[in-house]
């Protein structure tokens, strides 16, 4: 294979996890882990724009920060700048487990293990634009300092040559010489985001991670910034990771989309295909919610229920608590019963404790026998989804306890669906509506 046709992978992400400890009490003991990113794998190819989409809190920012080298992963790896052959070798080595091949690849490419030279190369070539344009510019620095800083760090220019480079960068983002000696507070939100973009582009990086760069802006300004980014990408061939909670924002910009839900990728694929023919019910729900460019930050209308706690992600498929197509194989578990109980306060108040043998198998203890019986009846009632009923393998009512055992299922993993598409769903295709 010649270098010319060699499609380089800017970032190869392999089973990446980032957990944050939850500390509690006077002793600050660790009582749990927020699984902000919980097993994400994908490739980011040179020159492409990948849209990373998902509701607020699903781990997009955390993923972006790990990829930018701002946080160390809890486990898994981010690999920088691989040739096609190296990528194949990496996946073989990862499958084979720890070995000499892997160690060698990691020293040169794994972001949290790079030696000084490679780290410098990664650092120069991976830049980030943050969501909050107010917090991302030092209020005491002039625009000339802010945009010129990367060039100064790498000693690319100084004196009047530096000023001219900065002017050039400002002009690229639609600002100009007249803005050099102003402070950030003298600009509007959109202009500030332009300054951030100019700073990120100063070193002509390979990859730019854009974390909701337009979410905080007015609608009209949003469109301008999107156009600017699109143009820059087209003209200069950057690789973009475009993070957003709003699918419509990336529709015209992204070559590929990865839909994230609760720390994992639910579906990914080429943009038009994914929009026209989603496979994952979550993707479909996002599309149906179809928030237009109103800057509406309320989340996705049309998507019911709330996002589960990332410290206790649901079993099986993480989306099963909200999925309208859920099957008995989607991971129904004891937590779903407790959730149902919470909606019936009269019964929930009588719950004394839950003795779990596994996430799928537990004894629920009540204050009296009538409450236990009431739960058993409720489990057959209309409130409980039929797929959940079908997933129950055993219910037995004791004196004051109800033992429930669900069908045990494994985590639903991403599987190839042809055409560069991956989806994590037990269904082969979306059931036709109505």
């Amino acid at each position, binding site marked *: 294979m010649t270098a010319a046709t060699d499609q380089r992978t800017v970032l190869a992400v392999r089973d990446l996890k980032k957990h944050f400890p939850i500390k509690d009490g006077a002793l600050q003991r660790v009582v749990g882990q927020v699984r902000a990113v919980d097993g994400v794998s994908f490739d980011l190819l040179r020159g492409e724009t990948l849209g990373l989409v998902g509701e607020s809190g699903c781990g997009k920012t955390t993923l972006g*920060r790990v990829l*930018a*080298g*701002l946080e160390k992963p809890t486990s898994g790896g981010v690999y920088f700048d691989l040739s096609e052959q190296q990528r194949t070798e990496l996946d073989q080595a990862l499958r084979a487990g720890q070995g000499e091949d892997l160690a060698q690849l990691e020293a040169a490419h794994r972001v949290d293990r790079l030696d000084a030279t490679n780290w*410098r190369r990664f*650092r*120069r070539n*991976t*830049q*980030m634009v*943050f969501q*909050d344009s107010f*917090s*991302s*510019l*030092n*209020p*005491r*620095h*002039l625009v*000339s*300092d802010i945009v010129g*800083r*990367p060039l100064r*760090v*790498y000693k690319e220019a100084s*004196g*009047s040559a*530096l*000023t001219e480079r900065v002017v050039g960068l400002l002009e690229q983002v639609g600002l100009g*010489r*007249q803005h*050099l*000696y*102003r*402070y950030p507070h003298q600009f509007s939100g959109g202009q500030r985001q332009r300054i*951030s973009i100019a*700073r*990120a582009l100063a*070193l002509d990086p390979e990859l730019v991670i854009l974390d909701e760069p337009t979410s905080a802006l007015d609608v009209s300004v949003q469109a301008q910034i999107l156009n600017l980014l699109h143009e820059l990408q087209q003209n200069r061939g950057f690789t973009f990771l475009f993070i957003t909670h709003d699918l419509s924002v990336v529709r015209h910009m992204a070559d590929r989309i990865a839909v994230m839900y609760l720390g994992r990728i639910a579906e990914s694929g080429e943009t038009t295909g994914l929009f026209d023919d989603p496979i994952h019910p979550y993707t479909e729900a996002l599309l149906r919610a179809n928030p237009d460019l109103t800057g509406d930050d309320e989340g996705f209308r049309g998507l019911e229920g709330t996002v589960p706690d990332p410290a206790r992600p649901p079993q099986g498929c993480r989306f099963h608590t909200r999925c309208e197509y859920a099957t008995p194989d989607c991971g129904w578990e004891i937590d779903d019963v407790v959730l149902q109980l919470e909606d019936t306060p009269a019964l929930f108040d009588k719950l004394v404790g839950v003795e779990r043998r596994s996430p799928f198998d537990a004894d629920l203890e009540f204050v009296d026998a009538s409450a236990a019986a009431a739960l058993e009846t409720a489990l057959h009632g209309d409130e409980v989804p039929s797929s959940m009923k079908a997933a129950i393998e055993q219910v037995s009512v004791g004196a004051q306890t109800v033992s429930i055992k669900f069908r045990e299922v494994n985590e639903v993993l991403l599987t190839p669906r042809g055409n560069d598409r991956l989806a994590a769903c037990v269904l082969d295709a979306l059931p036709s509506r109505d």
Partner: protein
Amino acid sequence: MSTTSTSPPLTTSHESAFRVRLRRMGETSGRVLSNPTTLGGLVIIVVMVGMAVLAPWLVEPNTPNASQMPRDWGAIAVPPGSPGHLLGTTNTGGDVLYGVIWGARTSLRLSLIVVTVTVAIGVAVGSLAGFRGGRLDEILMRIVDVFLSIPELIFALAIAAVLGPSFRNIILALAIVFWVKYARIMRAQVMHVKQNDYVDASRVIGDSSWNIFRKDVLPNSITPVVVQATLDMGNIVLVGATLSFIGLAEAGLAEWGVLVSEGQAGISGGRWWASTFPGLMVFLWALAFNLLGDGIRDVLDPKTETR
């Protein structure tokens, strides 16, 4: 053709940047001084510091050690307005005017040394704890908590008493006590400021930790320290005078606390001047720096309040 466009002309960049920064500093100072009370405080400070600096020309020392009160045994406890003794003398013939003016010099020396040393130590410790975090932070803050559990005046008094009565030891005692506050303020500020995205932006660029601290964290954290240091320029003189009043400085030192203490016995006999003038100076000094400190805070840092 004369244009007054906002875009800077094509002069060298540094000149323009310099002018913009200078203008901003000027505007900020202007805003601080537009408040009449703050301005009043500054005027008092200028006068008192002027006295301190010009002391050798204002009242000529005729003793070998200028910081000691000269004695005029021919004019014991003469009232203000007496020839050669504008503000009167003490029971031991010490010229009150001399004590007031040279006392300003002593106070300026005291407050400048203590504030410089304590701000340097406090900012270093607080920055290290807040910027690095982790175990180091825990250890440093444990030490700070121990210091903070003892009231400032009592602590300084105890140290000065143990070290023995001398003005040098008062300076040392105050330095030991006063750095803690700055460490606490600085740590809290740094922890807050380092969460800003501009700090992460600098990390993504690849700038060094030292540069990030120096350019991003320190300048955005320092304002409350400046405010506190201004207030302490006054407070330290107050505490210092208290310590020398109760006899922890050398007897006969040209210092306001010593002078108040010397004149104290005369008050019941109607000889009010020996205590009143230096006492008034202490009060004015502390007041002036507090007015200025509050003024700076109101403009630069409206959110913080003193503890």
